[in-house]
Every structure is written in structure tokens, then in C-alpha cells.
């Protein structure tokens, strides 16, 4: 039998609810192969020709009906239903339904290829609905581990796997779903801007203070990818999502695994007819909380005060006449009170996402193909005079094709092709920048734009508000004057070959894999120069104003083009492995594996010679496991890696790890009664080393980086065009002693199952010691005259913590089920050794023993009461200060406040505690779930420098003037009310650097608890679904970031000090998921 070309092609059209028509065109991977014969043909035939025999029975028979579904509730057609011990049986129909005649003493056996067989005693039931679980991929039985899968029971390392359903949140960025979902993962998100909203995440915190990589290694189908690639993954395509936390779990990755590993496998096709699943979501997002600005009248009064309070001789910026007329509301263009936030931002943005996947296959080949599309819109307003749209519009497309082909009974080839594409248009400087700009403009100088007066009534352009010569920044003009576009592509092609040598040696398999990933991106922008206007004269009686153009020479009505950057890079990865697995004498389970990897990455936009050279990594790793009687487990792993970054003597690193485990619940003594309560108890201990070569920004530590002719030059000659040459620049001094950063990790874990697995608890206590952390030499004085401070790897850090996860799972009858889950992570990392100057006299400056993201700052006591108070206090070494400015504590008593008085203040900036908990429940066709997420033990600082009101600064030839946040207006030190504890010090119209030092004054607690998500779903009743020829159809409403509990009220606390950034979004989402 010959299989011919299979070609799958589909297109979907649907109407968007808001008049827009979307067109998604997905041309999926087409593949072609020819095969001479199919060795598995017989089996297929056997299946299809299964005899259906109904045998008369003497005793009472009855008809049982029912439906067989998979765990997602999709009907399973073709399931074999037989009476156990006989040949009587039926096959389920297209809707997964069956009916069979049985006797009460019979037991029904449900089996389906790829699913675990289930046996149900008939007894007195008349209807038996069965849910079959997937066999091989079932998370309950085997778990994904480094370079393979392992029986979950026998794993001793610390691996956390998440149900992919939990990653399904209404966001097109997968990383935003991670916070609080998994024990051991610290994650937070600081911006809600489409395209810029990746969450930061770390496995068990950050235990290095080097300048290199501290993020976990991310692998999709064994291939290293970037955070951006992870963010674009669609949860529907994910088969498993795990994080590998301890040394034993990550040792195989040797060079790359020190910061933990996120391991994702994508779905593969399963035998059976094509399963089509389609999901459509439409969501409404709006900021969780925006910073409040004060009213314009207060603004003007306080702006005047800011000038007078610092220098009574200076004239006030806003006259009484202007203030009075603004209060009266005389003319909103002449006496503007501009609400920039309102002029620029909408309340709600509407986003769409769609995902389609088709899977199926026969015994020869299986396929999983998926396409997804998402469109995220920003919340910026657009100007109706422009025919372009400068609002953020980010479209992401993703196609994926995973094809498994059985080349022979023991050989499997897998081809994976994936492409992700991003198209973006948005404002010139990004959405976050526009938010910043709204707080960098006065609300009363000019409106966003003027209604044309008589002179300019025929002007073709928008009459933007401006001041003076038009150099005052108008954020509205900045927003609509142009747009930026970018386009990003990631293409990944992967070939994998698996060979089972079981014919010759039982349990021996081998695998080779090759992958290439190509990235490319480019961006460009187009903009015009706005014309700015201001009021020239105003006739109060007639209420008529005349405008004047401020920048007639500079404005343009046509667009200019600015080319942007173009980035290309490519990487090649290959992997070969041999595995052996066997049971000896029944009780001894052994396995062994050797993996060889090589990775090569080059970039097309290198800036110098050393960055143009390929980045390479090479390694041999192995895993050997032994299990005795499913009770005693032992595992040895190693990674042996080479890195091109180091000198020949330090190039290779060997990273072994060892783990042992004891499954107490499998002991004989456990079976007597204890098993009913504690169904499972496993204790495991691991210890090992993991390396890290991404330890700094330097490419080759053992070489100096010298740029001959790259230094500064000098010009001679009478006409300044004579002898000119450029000198040498040294960016790095050679140091052949620099080698691997090494993490020594230990983990003590316990796994407990209670009440027949209804409650599962995983708990780990971990400890880590990082050595050889790269740091700059701290005791080299500048008088040595080096171009660059030498680096050495002498730093050491400690890490410790716990992570606990717990879930509870119960089905009360066939109609009601409940799943609860929670997790908690505490991770603290501290400096163990840090080379620093001798701080014995000022021990509080020393970092040793302090958390890695600890901040040092001044201890603010209060605000100075008056000038006498200032004179009596130690001198503060930050320039001008006086009454109403912040008074700092003199820690060393030397009567001067300077660097030596900095103390560790607050908690670290990276939260030390992350936790999440939630509940899902279902009743008949309804399901409901909610999830809370929280974080604790972190501090952040209100950025006093950027928040300080009334300060003019120049940027890109424009004048910015900071606005007035309401919390400042509400509580500040003034000569009228000299409150030494006021939230904001004495006003000023220029920076008082005394007040903008990092200090306890602006420190805030970053802890919060957030109602992260709520979802209500409804599965349409079968009758309805069947009529529409569907398998299932689920409608759901979900919401994220719905409510936040925190002591900090000014903006979303998760954004930290970045209060003027693009706010995090609260999303309400409507979705439908259809299977056919």
C-alpha cells in the first residue's frame, strides 16, 4: 500500500463583532513522503475488522448505554467496549456513544489506542460514561526530564510540571501567565504594553550577582530559545510545561542549567481521525490603575510656590490673572486645563486571539498542526486628521507543524517546523514613553490642539498646542505625529530520528536531532514635524482668540522616513543520544543515557570582531538511574561541557550530581492501613554541581579586547585638518584565570499523596552555593590608570528556600468535581563573598551576608524643620538643601552625610516570596475557576527624580516640564504647613539632588495579593452540539488582574517604581472553544 502526498490546507474567515473582517490565512506545512510498505498495516486491519459479536445469554441481560470522552470532554469515537473475558463488544460511534447488552456480573472494558484501558463493573448501572486518559503522555505516570522522559515515580530530582490549562489566560504573552502558578518560580510583570509586556521570571530566585545571564534556560522541544519565543507560545500547543530546579534535574544541561531550566514539549499527533480544535477569544483590556494627577489650579499655585520657596527673587510662572480665569473657565483654549491622560488614552482596548489546531494520523504518520493569530491593540487615541493609525497594533502569527513518521517498526522520524511572525505598528517612541510624557507636560500651558481661528481655519494640519518657539513638548503631538513599524520573524526547523535497538539489545534506543533557528527583524518609522500654535491675542468680550504659529520654518505636513535597525541571527543545534533501560531480575530497574550536544550561534549585526565570532557550546552528558523494587532510587547525572569563552585551561567543566530517593509507601509495612490515608510518600535528596558560562558581557575572558584606532583621536594643523589619528582603546584586559561559575545545589524533597491521591503535596527545601561569580575587582584604585577594571571570578553567593505545591482533586459524582491547588515559593539569595574595599569602619556598607538585590541608601529621618535645624545637622554632601528637604542619618558620626552613610534599606527588589492558590470546580456543563497570586518580601522606590514636579528639562531639543501627581499635592512640606513628616519635601522648580538620593523616604513595600484570574465556562449541551455537527463547544468568560490587595495605592504595585510606565492591564475576555 502506498501513501501519497498529504496536503492540508485551510482558510478561515470570520466576521469580527465590530464590523471589521478578519482574514486568517494559514497555509500549513505540506509534506510528502513515499514508502514502500507499511509494516504496521496488519494491525490496522485487525482493528478495523474487529468482530462484533452479540452472544445470547441465559441470565438477565440489560442494555447499557454511555459515552466515552477524553479528559477534555471530547467524545472518543472508535473505542472498543468489550465484556471482560469475552469477545463480545462494540465500538463507539462518532459521538463516542455506545450501547451494549450485559449481565450485572459483567465488567466492561474500554480500550482505545493511546489511552489507558479502563474496566468498570456493571452491577446495577444502566448508563456508564467513561473518561479515558491518555496513556503514554499522561502526566500522572511519566514526567518530562532533561533529554527524555522518566517514570514519574522514579524521579528523585526536583521537577515541577504545570497543567497547560493553567497557562491559558487571556493574553497573547505566555510569560504573563507564569506568576504564582508554579512552586519555585519567581515571576513579576512591570509593563502592560503590547510587545513590551514580558514578565521577568527566575527559577528559585537569582543566586548570582554577575553581569551575565541569571534567567533560566528555556527549551522548546530540546532547543534553546529566547524569552520572546516563549512568550509567543500558545498554551494549546503545549504538551507539557516543566521547570527543572535542582542540580540532578539540570546537570545534564551542564553549561546552561545553573539558573534552572524551563522545558516545554509541544503536542504531537495521535492516531485517529483528524481532531480539530478551534478557539476564539475577544478581550477587553483596561489599565488596572493609573496614576492620578492633581487639578490644574493646584498645579499652578504649587508651581508658583515651587519657584518662590526656593528663590523669592524669581518671578512666578503663572500669573494671578491666568489662575483666576482658569478657575472661571473663561475659554478652554485660552485658559486650558488639559487632561493629557484623557486626551491621549482610551479606557478600553479590544484584542482578539484565535487558535486552530488539527491533529490525527495513522499508524505510519501522525501530525499536529496549529496556527494561531492574535491582535493586541494599545489604548492610545488617534487623530482624525491623520490617515495613519499610531495606536499600538501588534499582530502575532504562529504556525507549527509536528509530524511523526514511523519509518519502520522501530524507527521514528519527527519533523518539527515552527514559524512565529510579529507585525507591529505603534507610536514612535512606544506606549510606555507616552505615559511618561503625560507626566512631563504642564496641564495649563496649552491644550492638545486648538480649534482653528479665522486665520488658520483652512489649515490642512492639526493645530497642536505649543509654547514659546514650539520647543515645549506636546505629548499628544508626540503621539500622533508618526508611527513606527517593526516586523519580526523566527523560523525553526527541526529533524529528529529515534531508533529502537530492542531487537538486538532490549531497552536500547538512540536518537539524533538537528535544529536550526533563524531570527530576523527590522523596523522603521515615519513622522512629520508638527506645527505648534499658541494664543496671540484674546478678545474677552467677544470670546474670540487669535492664534500664532510658533514654528513656521520647522513644521512639515508631509512624512519623513527614518530607517531603523535590522537584526538577523541564526543558530544551529545538534544532539545525539543513546539510552538503555532494562529490568533485571524483576526488581532491579536500571537505565543509562549519554547525550552529546553541540550548539553554534552567529549574529549578522556584530559590532566588533569578537562579537562576530560564533558562540559555541559543546557537551557530553549522562544519566544513570537505578531503582530497587520501586522503593529505593538512585540517580547519577553529569554534564561535561566546553565553552569557547574561557582559556584552554578552564575551557572544560565537569558537573556531576547525585540523587537518592525512598518511596516509603511502596514498602510492605505501609500497605496495612497506612496506605489508605497516605497513599504515597516519597523522600528524595539530591546534590550536585551545575555550571554557567554566560557569566558576563565579555566574549572571551582570556583575551584582551583592544581596538586599535578605536580610541579617541587628536587633531593638529593650522586649519584643523592636518594630522589626525585615533589611538588605542582597551575594553578588556586578558585574564586566563576566568572560568566557569559553579553552583553547588542541594535539594531535599518530599512527595505526599493523601486519600488515594485526592491531595498531593510536593515540598522541597533547597540550598545553593554559587562560587566563581564574576565581579569587577573592588580594590583597584583609579590611579592605576586602567582602561577597564579587571574582572575576576571570586564572588560567592548563597541561596536557600522552600517551594511547596499542593493540589486537591475530587469528583463527587459524575456531575460535580473540584480541583484546588496552591503553591508557595520562598527563595533568598545572599552575598557569601564579595570583593570589596575594607569596610571594617563602616560595616553597614559591606554586602556580605546581604541579599543580592538589596538596595543601599540613606536612612531618612525627617524633613528639616528650619534653617537652624540645617545648621545644627551634619553636612549633607549632595549639593543644595535647606528647610523642608530630607534629613539623613549620619551613620558613622563623622558629621558629613556621604557614601559611607549608606545602609541596606528595605527588602530586596526581587520578591523573595511568590505564591498562588486557586480553585476550579465544575457542575454538569458549567465550570468555574479562580486564581490568586501574590508576592512578598520586596521593596521598591518611588522614583523621586522623575516624579519631582515643575522641573524643566531638555530632551531631544524639546522642553519637558514635569506634572504634578496628586499624592504630592496632597501632602508636601510648605512654608505654610511645615510638616517634617510630609510625603514630599519642599517644592522646587529644579532638581534638589539631596532629595532624590535612594533613601527610606521613598521606599515602599512591594507585597501584594492579586485576584489574578477568574473563569466561568459553559459546555453547550450535546443535543445542540450534535446538531451543529460539532464534537464539543465551550463558551467562557474570563478575567485577569481583577483585584489587587496592597498597601500601595498610587499605581499598580507590581510595576514597582515604574509608576509612569504603560500600566498593567485588567482583561475581560470572551471566548469560545470548538472541537470537531
Amino acid at each position, binding site marked *: 500500500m502506498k501513501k501519497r502526498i498529504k496536503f492540508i490546507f485551510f482558510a478561515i474567515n470570520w466576521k469580527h463583532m465590530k464590523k471589521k473582517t478578519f482574514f486568517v490565512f494559514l497555509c500549513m506545512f505540506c509534506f510528502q513522503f513515499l514508502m514502500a510498505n507499511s509494516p504496521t498495516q496488519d494491525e490496522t486491519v485487525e482493528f478495523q475488522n474487529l468482530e462484533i459479536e452479540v452472544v445470547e445469554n441465559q441470565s438477565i441481560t440489560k442494555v447499557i448505554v454511555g459515552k466515552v470522552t477524553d479528559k477534555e470532554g471530547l467524545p472518543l469515537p472508535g473505542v472498543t467496549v468489550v465484556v471482560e473475558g469475552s469477545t463480545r463488544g462494540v465500538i463507539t460511534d462518532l459521538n463516542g456513544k455506545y450501547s451494549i447488552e450485559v449481565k450485572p456480573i459483567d465488567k466492561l472494558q474500554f480500550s482505545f489506542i493511546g489511552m489507558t484501558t479502563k474496566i468498570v463493573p456493571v452491577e446495577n448501572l444502566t448508563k456508564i460514561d467513561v473518561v479515558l486518559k491518555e496513556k503514554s503522555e499522561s502526566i500522572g505516570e511519566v514526567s518530562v526530564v532533561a533529554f527524555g522522559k522518566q517514570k514519574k515515580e522514579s524521579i528523585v530530582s526536583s521537577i515541577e510540571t504545570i497543567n497547560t490549562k493553567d497557562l491559558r489566560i487571556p493574553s497573547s504573552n505566555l510569560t504573563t501567565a507564569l506568576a504564582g502558578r508554579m512552586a519555585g518560580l519567581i515571576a513579576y510583570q512591570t509593563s502592560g504594553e503590547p510587545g513590551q509586556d514580558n514578565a521577568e521570571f527566575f527559577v528559585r530566585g537569582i543566586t548570582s550577582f554577575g553581569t551575565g545571564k541569571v534567567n533560566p534556560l528555556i527549551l522548546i522541544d530540546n532547543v534553546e530559545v529566547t524569552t520572546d519565543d516563549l512568550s509567543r507560545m500558545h498554551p494549546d500547543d503545549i504538551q507539557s510545561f516543566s521547570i527543572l530546579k535542582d542540580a540532578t534535574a539540570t546537570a545534564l544541561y551542564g553549561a546552561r542549567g545553573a539558573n534552572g531550566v524551563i522545558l516545554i514539549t509541544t503536542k504531537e499527533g495521535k492516531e485517529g481521525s483528524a481532531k480539530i480544535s478551534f478557539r476564539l477569544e475577544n478581550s477587553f483590556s483596561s489599565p488596572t490603575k493609573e496614576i492620578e494627577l492633581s487639578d490644574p489650579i493646584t498645579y499652578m499655585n504649587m508651581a508658583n510656590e515651587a519657584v518662590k520657596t526656593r528663590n523669592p527673587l524669581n518671578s512666578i510662572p503663572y500669573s494671578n490673572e491666568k489662575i483666576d480665569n482658569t478657575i472661571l473657565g473663561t475659554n478652554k483654549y485660552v485658559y486650558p486645563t488639559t487632561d493629557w491622560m484623557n486626551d491621549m488614552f482610551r479606557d478600553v482596548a479590544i484584542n482578539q486571539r484565535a487558535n486552530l489546531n488539527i491533529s490525527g494520523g495513522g499508524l505510519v504518520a501522525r501530525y499536529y498542526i496549529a496556527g494561531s493569530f492574535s491582535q493586541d491593540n494599545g489604548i492610545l487615541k488617534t487623530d482624525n486628521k491623520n490617515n495613519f493609525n499610531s495606536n499600538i497594533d501588534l499582530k502575532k502569527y504562529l504556525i507549527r507543524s509536528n509530524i511523526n513518521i514511523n519509518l519502520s517498526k522501530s524507527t521514528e522520524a519527527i519533523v518539527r517546523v515552527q514559524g512565529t511572525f510579529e507585525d507591529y505598528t505603534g507610536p514612535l517612541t512606544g506606549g510606555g514613553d507616552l505615559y511618561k510624557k503625560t507626566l512631563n507636560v504642564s496641564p495649563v500651558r496649552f491644550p492638545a490642539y486648538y480649534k482653528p481661528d479665522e486665520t488658520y481655519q483652512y489649515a490642512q494640519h492639526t493645530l497642536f498646542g505649543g509654547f514659546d518657539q514650539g520647543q515645549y513638548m506636546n505629548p499628544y503631538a508626540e503621539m500622533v505625529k508618526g508611527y513606527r513599524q517593526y516586523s519580526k520573524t523566527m523560523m525553526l526547523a527541526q529533524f529528529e530520528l529515534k531508533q529502537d535497538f530492542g531487537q538486538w539489545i532490549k531497552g536500547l534506543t538512540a536518537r539524533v536531532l538537528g535544529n536550526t533557528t533563524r531570527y530576523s527583524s527590522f523596523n522603521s518609522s515615519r513622522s512629520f514635524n508638527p506645527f505648534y500654535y499658541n494664543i496671540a491675542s484674546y478678545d474677552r468680550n467677544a470670546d474670540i482668540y487669535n492664534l500664532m504659529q510658533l514654528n513656521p520654518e520647522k513644521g512639515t505636513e508631509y512624512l519623513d522616513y527614518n530607517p531603523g535597525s535590522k537584526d538577523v541571527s541564526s543558530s544551529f543545534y545538534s544532539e545525539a543520544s543513546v539510552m538503555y533501560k532494562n529490568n533485571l531480575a524483576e526488581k532491579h530497574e536500571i537505565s543509562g543515557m549519554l547525550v552529546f550536544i553541540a550548539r553554534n550561534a552567529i549574529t549578522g549585526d556584530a559590532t566588533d570582531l569578537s562579537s562576530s565570532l560564533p558562540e559555541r557550546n559543546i557537551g557530553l552528558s549522562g544519566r544513570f538511574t537505578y531503582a530497587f523494587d520501586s522503593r529505593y532510587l538512585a540517580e547519577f547525572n553529569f554534564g561535561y561541557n566546553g565553552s569557547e569563552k574561557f582559556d584552554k585551561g578552564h575551557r572544560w567543566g565537569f558537573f556531576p550530581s547525585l540523587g537518592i530517593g525512598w518511596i516509603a509507601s511502596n514498602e510492605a509495612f505501609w500497605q496495612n492501613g497506612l496506605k489508605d490515608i497516605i497513599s504515597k510518600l516519597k523522600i528524595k535528596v539530591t546534590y550536585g554541581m551545575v555550571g554557567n558560562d554566560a557569566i558576563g558581557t565579555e566574549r572571551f575572558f582570556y583575551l584582551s579586547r583592544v581596538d586599535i584606532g578605536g580610541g579617541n583621536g587628536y587633531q593638529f594643523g593650522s586649519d*584643523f585638518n592636518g594630522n589626525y589619528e585615533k589611538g588605542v582603546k582597551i575594553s578588556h584586559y586578558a585574564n586566563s584565570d576566568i572560568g566557569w561559575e559553579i553552583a553547588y545545589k542541594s535539594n531535599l524533597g518530599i512527595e505526599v499523596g493523601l486519600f488515594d491521591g485526592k491531595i498531593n503535596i510536593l515540598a522541597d527545601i533547597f540550598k545553593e552555593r554559587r562560587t566563581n561569580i564574576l565581579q569587577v575587582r573592588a580594590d583597584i584604585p583609579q590611579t592605576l590608570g586602567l582602561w577597564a577594571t579587571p574582572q575576576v571570578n571570586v564572588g560567592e553567593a548563597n541561596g536557600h528556600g522552600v517551594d511547596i505545591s499542593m493540589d486537591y482533586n475530587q469528583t463527587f459524582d459524575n456531575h460535580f468535581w473540584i480541583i484546588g491547588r496552591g503553591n508557595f515559593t520562598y527563595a533568598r539569595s545572599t552575598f557569601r563573598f564579595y570583593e570589596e574595599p575594607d569596610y571594617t569602619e563602616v560595616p553597614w556598607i559591606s554586602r556580605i551576608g546581604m541579599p543580592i538585590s538589596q538596595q543601599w541608601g540613606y536612612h531618612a529621618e525627617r524633613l528639616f524643620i528650619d534653617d537652624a535645624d540645617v545648621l545644627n545637622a551634619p553636612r549633607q554632601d549632595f549639593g543644595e538643601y535647606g528647610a523642608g528637604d530630607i534629613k539623613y542619618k549620619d551613620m558613622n558620626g563623622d558629621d558629613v552625610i556621604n557614601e559611607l552613610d549608606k545602609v541596606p534599606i528595605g527588602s530586596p527588589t526581587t520578591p523573595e516570596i511568590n505564591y498562588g492558590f486557586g480553585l476550579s470546580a465544575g457542575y454538569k456543563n458549567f465550570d468555574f475557576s479562580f486564581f490568586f497570586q501574590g508576592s512578598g518580601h520586596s521593596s521598591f522606590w518611588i522614583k523621586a527624580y522623575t516624579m519631582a514636579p515643575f522641573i*524643566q528639562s*531638555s530632551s531631544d531639543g524639546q522642553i519637558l516640564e514635569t506634572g504634578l501627581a496628586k499624592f504630592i499635592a496632597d501632602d508636601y512640606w510648605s512654608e505654610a504647613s511645615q510638616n517634617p513628616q510630609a510625603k514630599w519635601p519642599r517644592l522646587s522648580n529644579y532638581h534638589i539632588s539631596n532629595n532624590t538620593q535612594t533613601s527610606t523616604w521613598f521606599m515602599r513595600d512591594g507585597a501584594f495579593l492579586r485576584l489574578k484570574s477568574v473563569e466561568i465556562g459553559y459546555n453547550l449541551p450535546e443535543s445542540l452540539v450534535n446538531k451543529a455537527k460539532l464534537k464539543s463547544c465551550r463558551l467562557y468568560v474570563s478575567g485577569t488582574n481583577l483585584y489587587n490587595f496592597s498597601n500601595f495605592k498610587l499605581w499598580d504595585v507590581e510595576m514597582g517604581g515604574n509608576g509612569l510606565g504603560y500600566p498593567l492591564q485588567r482583561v475581560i475576555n470572551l471566548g469560545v472553544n470548538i472541537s470537531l
Partner: protein
Amino acid sequence: MKKNKYKIILVLTTILLGLTGPSCNNYIDVVPDNIPTVDYAFNNRNEAEAFLFGCFSFLPSHINPNSNPALLSGDEVWLIDPIYGFDPILWGIAKGEQGTNEPLANYWTTYQGGTNTMGGNRTFTGLRDINTFLENINKPFDLEEWERKQWIAEAKFLKAYLHFWLFRMYGPIPLIKENIPISANSEEVQVYREPVDEVVAYIVSLLDEAAEGLPIKILDTTSDLGRPTKAMALALKAQLLTLAASPLFNGNSDYAGIIDNRGVELFPQEYKAEKWQLAADALKTAIDVCHEAGNELFDFNSSIYSKNLSDSTILAMQVRGAVTERWNSEIIWGDSNSNPDLIQKLCHPTFFAPQAGGDIKQCYAPTLRTVEQFYTKNGVPIEEDKDWIGVDLFGIRESGKADRYYINEGYKTINLHYNREARFYGAISFDGATFYGDGHQNDDTQLLYTNLRYGYGNGSFVSDRHSSTGYLVKKLVHYLTSCPQTNANIITYRYAFPVIRLADLYLMYSEALNEVKEAPDAEVYKYIDLVRNRSGLLGVKESWQNFSTKPQKPATKEGMREIIHRERMNELAFEGERFWDLRRWKMAEEYMNKPIMGLNVLEKEPEEFYKPQTLFDMTFEKKDYLWPIKQSELSRNKNLVQNLGW
């Protein structure tokens, strides 16, 4: 059939493993040979020359106000904040914002690659590079001996100048005689600040060695003008010895307690008069060598435009020309590398409406005390001039025809602006002042004039481009710098800013002789009078005798000292000399504890505009004489002693 397939797969696997397997070490050996190292810099003459130029690049930009603290960190000029397109970092020193956390003009610890340089430069890196150069300059195979000798001398001159630059700021400094290897241990790199006398002696020895190998004159001026000459080395030596003889470093008891952990006293506590003699000798030698090299006081009559100009204009242009005329005869060391572009944009007034939005910044404003400090036309201070007794300095009157070369005819301005010495008119743009230049070189009958009142006339009042005092510096603008009527942008004419010019040496020589001698004599008067005569002033003795209320002043040592000080401040105004002079004379406390004054620039009407205003209450303490060393550097090197008061 089946077996074949297995074989194929096996072979494929083996090949894949085989391809990647055995060549592991080669695989990660990605670095090709010949990647550049410092050694390549001395392989041949061209590379070595580039290295030498790299050493030169560590010289501060003398005419950049964000590099040279002497330009705007004192009481001579006052700015506004913000200024369009310019952040005056070093102005913070004038405003009392110097500190140990982030010192301004930090030439000690500014680290290369740092984003915020705080107006400093990595001087010690420069010194290390110079030493590297001196260590390796015997290597290039194709370098001729005479050139090697000259380059070594140049490198030594640079080494001396960078030490001098640090010494003037910090006082005692570590001497970077040779490089400490990078592999040195922590103790070896912890250097000491050496005492003043040792520092001076070392720099002098470097300059003596340099003078040996440097040429008298640069022959190939087109390609090499600006390179060190013998005159430069000797002038610098004279400057250094004068500094060392001055009250700040010569027996200054304020610094009595500055002793390092070796017990070494860093400042000499004994006043030594012979230091002035050393200075005088060095100055005489330097002046002689300068004359030999062809240096003489600049005369604007030698300019190609001078023939159609009035005497008044020529006189006003004498000193402005001595600074801005490209490579004029007076320049001993001209900075060929720093372009006086920014400074001219800061100084240039706007004359026409479009310029209000261009890159002219017009904010480099002399303080009222600088305006008052210039002599009257009689060559004596206003407060001593007999003619000026009872004159209301701020009394307004209309200008007449006689004033037309200096003041716009028929313009209402104050008495302070009338009847001043020519250098005043050449140095300062005031309200109603004529402006020679900007497209009017050939003819001074229709000169442009500056109107600096609020919202008036040519320059509209722009909030980030205006004078804070009602005055602008004119002296640093070349007359060929142009900003046409229809143009918003200015085209600045590049000149070589004089780091050292002859008048400076003359006045210093007078000063040193005055200190050496019991009482001033003809030799003392000779050099100061040369400078005065050039700008149309009578000699010191005559002027004081004829016009001063204190006619005997030039006869006493103290009186003459005061006169020489005032002369230096007038002659060298806005050239970055006053800043160091006031410190050197230990007079900064007297001058800089007075408020900074200006006119009322927010007013339109003369009656209001000409009311003096306090702009800033300036304070200067003992600690401000010398720079603070950054706190972090003291933490790293416990052998360093912080300067007094920081």
C-alpha cells in the same frame, strides 16, 4: 529490506556522531589568530603614531565648558537653567554643589565608559598610556631616530601637563612615574599622594627633559601646528613654578594638618621667597624662548580687515583678536583639537527673529562684578577714577555720536557702559553694545547691536536661551562667526583657543618680579605696560598718577600686587585664568563670598531693567580651594588622604 533500513540509520547516526565528536576542542576554538592586542600598536611607525595621538586625546578640551572647569565654575559668568541643548555640569561647582560622592570635574576617578562623566576625564588612564608609549617606543622598526626623540619629548610634555592639571586641582597627587603592572597585588597599587614640592620637582624635571627634545618651531604648520614646542614646555614650567610660589602652596598654614599614614606632611609649611625667584627665572627663560620662536603680542592692525576700521574698533579687537584670531602671533600653545563651537553658540547674541529657535544659546553671561571690574578709559578701576567720582553707575542716558563704535547711537543705557577701556568693549556685549562681526567685517559704520531687555528688538526672549545678567561674553566669539538674517543656525568660525598666550607670561613675570623685589621698579612695570599699551592704555605709573585717587599705588609692592591682579583679571577675562588665579592667590574666599549680581532681565523698560538683582548667594569655604577626591577612591586606597574640609 528491513535490514537495509537499519543499516542506513545506523550509518547516519554514526556519521552524525562522528562529525561532531572527535573535534570537540577545535569546535570551541572559535578565535582566529591575529586578533588585535596592544603589542600590535608598536609594530610599526604608523601604529605607534596613532598610539601617541591617543595619548594626546587625554588632554582636556580647554574651550569646552563641560571639560574645563575654569570657564564657568567661578564668579565670572552666570548661566540659566535649563539651557537649550546644553547641560552645564561644571556650573554646579560655582553653585556650591561640589561633593565627595560624585565630584564635579572629576579628573581623578572618572572612569572610561562611564555614562556620566561629571565633566571630568580619565587622567590616570592617559598617564598609563603615556608610560606604555615610553616603554614601547623603541619597538617600531621603521621609526627614525630624530622622530623617536621628538615623540618621546612630546610624550613627556603630555605627562607633565596631565600631572600639572591634576596638581592645580588637587594639590598633592600620586606621581605616575612608571606603570604598575596589572598583575600587581592590592598593596602595590595603593599609591600615596606625594608632597607639593616633590610633585613640582618631578613635573619640572619632565618639562626640562621635554624641552630638550622639542622643536623651537613647528615647521609643517598645515599638518602639525598645535604640537608641543620648546616654548610650550618652558611656558608650562614657568606657570607651574609661579603656581608653586603662590600663597596657596607656598607655606599655606591652612593645610598644616594634612599628613598621610606614612607621617609625610603633604603641604610645605614654610614660606620660601626663593620660589618666586625660581618662577621669575623660569618666566624670563620662557619669554626669551617665545621671542626666539617668533611670539609677540598680537596687533589687530595686522588683520586683513583692519584697514577700513575705526581706531576704536581696532582697540576693542586687540585682546578679542589675541584670543580668537586663528594662530595669532601671541599664542604659545593653541588647542588645535577642541573646537570652540559650543562656546560661541553660548556667547553669540541673536540678532534676527529666526535665530530665536536655532542653536544659538546666548546665555554665557558675565556677572555684574566682572562688568564693573574692567577699567575706565583712563586705565584705572572705576572706584579709583577721579572722573567717576559721584557718577551714578546705573544712571540712564542716551548715547551720542562719539560713542557710536561702542554703543548704538541714540540708545538709552547706563553710565557704567560709557567711557570704559577698550578691552571692556571687546569682551562684553551689553544692552545697546555694538557687535563687530557676524557678517560686518569690512565696515564698522553700520554695526549690529545687542538688545538684551525682555522681549525687545532683535533677540526675542526665549526661556532657555537668554542672559541671566543682561550681558553676554563677546570676547570668545570670532568676528567671522556668522548667523545670517534668514538663518536659524549659526556657523561658527574655528579658532585655536590659546591655552597659554604671551600676555599671560608677561603679566606673570611682572607678578613674580614684584614679589621678588623689595619695591616695584621699571622691570616690573615694563611687562605689564606692554600688555596695557596694546589695548590703548597708558602705563601703570602714568595712569595712576593722572587719574587715580590713589596715585601712589604702583609705587608699593602691595599696591602693585593689587594692580597686577586686576590687570590679569581684565586682560585674561573669560579665558579660564581668573578661576585658578583667585585660588592661587588665596583670594577666592574674598571674591566668592559675595552675591552674584545681574540686571533685571525680565523687564522691558530701561528704568526697571537696569536695577541690579541678586541672582545667587555665592559661598566659598576653605575646602573649595582644592578638589575633593571621590569617597569610593578613598575606600579603595587607604593610603590616600582627603583634601581639607571634604
